[in-house]
């Protein structure tokens, strides 16, 4: 068997297993940990696909920064073990529809990849940092700048909301 295939199968099992673990675990902290494991596994898959930059940002941003905040909130609220989650009425039909959509997409990818995604196969070295920088700052400069502004707006919004306005302007010693 091909070495790549062996690695892929192991990763796939871990990825699916950790996703299931996240869904089925009753304890929110363990769920978060499974999600981290899942993100890390997907990052390794990106490396196999020749996109190391995306893999590393995936680990830094998702597995690192975002999940730390998740854990932080779970622990601070003491919400690790919720007794019974409230049920949402439209949850089941929505899940079925989305599941069918995902399945259809998978079928398209698996059976028609030679025709639909042929152009992607020819790209080489598309995942190196230099290449991504070049594409980002030439072709996609405007979306990049817009994203930057959106993030800035979100950041300022967060600061404004979080900032408590003190009634009495008594300055505490800092």
């Amino acid at each position, binding site marked *: 068997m091909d070495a790549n295939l062996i690695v892929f199968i192991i990763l796939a099992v871990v990825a699916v297993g950790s996703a299931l673990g996240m869904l089925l675990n009753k304890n929110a*902290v363990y769920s978060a940990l499974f999600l981290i494991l899942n993100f*890390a596994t997907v990052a390794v898959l990106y490396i196999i696909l020749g996109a190391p930059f995306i893999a*590393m*940002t995936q680990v830094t941003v998702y597995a690192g920064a975002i999940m730390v905040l998740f854990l932080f909130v779970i*622990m601070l609220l003491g919400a690790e073990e919720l007794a019974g989650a409230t049920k949402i009425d439209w949850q089941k039909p929505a899940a079925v529809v989305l599941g069918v959509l995902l399945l259809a997409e998978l079928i398209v990818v698996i059976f028609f990849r030679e025709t639909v995604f042929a152009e992607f196969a020819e790209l080489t070295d598309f995942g190196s940092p230099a290449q991504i920088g070049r594409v980002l700052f030439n072709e996609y400069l405007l979306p990049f700048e817009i994203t930057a502004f959106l993030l800035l707006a979100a950041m300022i919004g967060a600061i404004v909301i979080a900032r408590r306005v003190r009634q009495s302007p008594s300055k505490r010693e800092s």
Partner: protein
Amino acid sequence: MNETTGMILEWVIKGAVVAVICLIGFAYTTYYERRFLARIQVRIGPNRAGPWGLLQPVADGIKLIFKEELVPDKAYKFAFMLAPVLTMAPAIIVMGVVPWGTQANFFGRTIELGISNNLNVGILYILSVTSIAVYGIVLAGWASNNKYAMLGGLRSTAQMISYELALGLSFLPPIMLAGSLSLGDIVKGQQDFLWYFIPLLPTSIVFFIAVLAEVNRSPFDMPEAEQELVAGYHTEYSGMKFALFFMGEYVKMFSMSAVFSTLFLGGFAGPFVEQVPWLGPVYLLIKIIICLGLMIWIRGTLPRFRYDRLMKFGWKILLPIALINVVLTALMISIFGL
């Protein structure tokens, strides 16, 4: 033996060697710290086990192995076991991208000194691994199910996230000067030009401070803070699990010193390293020892920060300075055309 098997064997051996270097580095960093701190405080330090006390780390290790391991009744058992491992592993993994030299001859086989010297996302790799390292401490605090441990864990998360920003921004100036994210290229850039701590002195200082905070060293050893939190996140840990936390901290000191040396002190570069490639590891080790010495010196000199001041320092002083450093480096590059 065909080429593939040879290559796999080479990588396994190199990985094992780096891990062993980290562990020996850990053992003798503790010895180094105790002796050096003792000198600072006009004491003698451990000098009984073996000549000059050189066997002291071994004695400590054996003692810790034979200690009783307690797991609190109300602890989350699995996370409690996992936390020390999660603290320890990233510290060693960081070393994977630190180059120890160029190519060298080893029993008739040309090998690269270092595991992945020219990984084109080397710096990002370091950032991602250090961002994972936070989990060990948070989990330890939570899994112990103990107020003080929890407080220590939360504090350390806040601290590490805050200082990670300054750390990440301080990676940028060396990258800009070298024009590459690979640590091998950054060392090469320094061999051709200057060691980066000369043109980038403010950045290297910010980087060093951020590293101290990242590895929870004094004066940023907030998560432990004996007086307020007993021992912070590892209050409930004993025996070998405690030793793993201890190890994690010292191995992190060791590996972050290696990263600092590589980015700012020329890494394995030094006189005659082109002719004799085996000098590379020696030079790197000397630079690591100097960095470790600095860290210990700072511990012996400075008292601990108060928590609110620590956060203020990170966000209001260190982060803006790091940002300004990036802009200044860009200006320097465009003016002098480096």
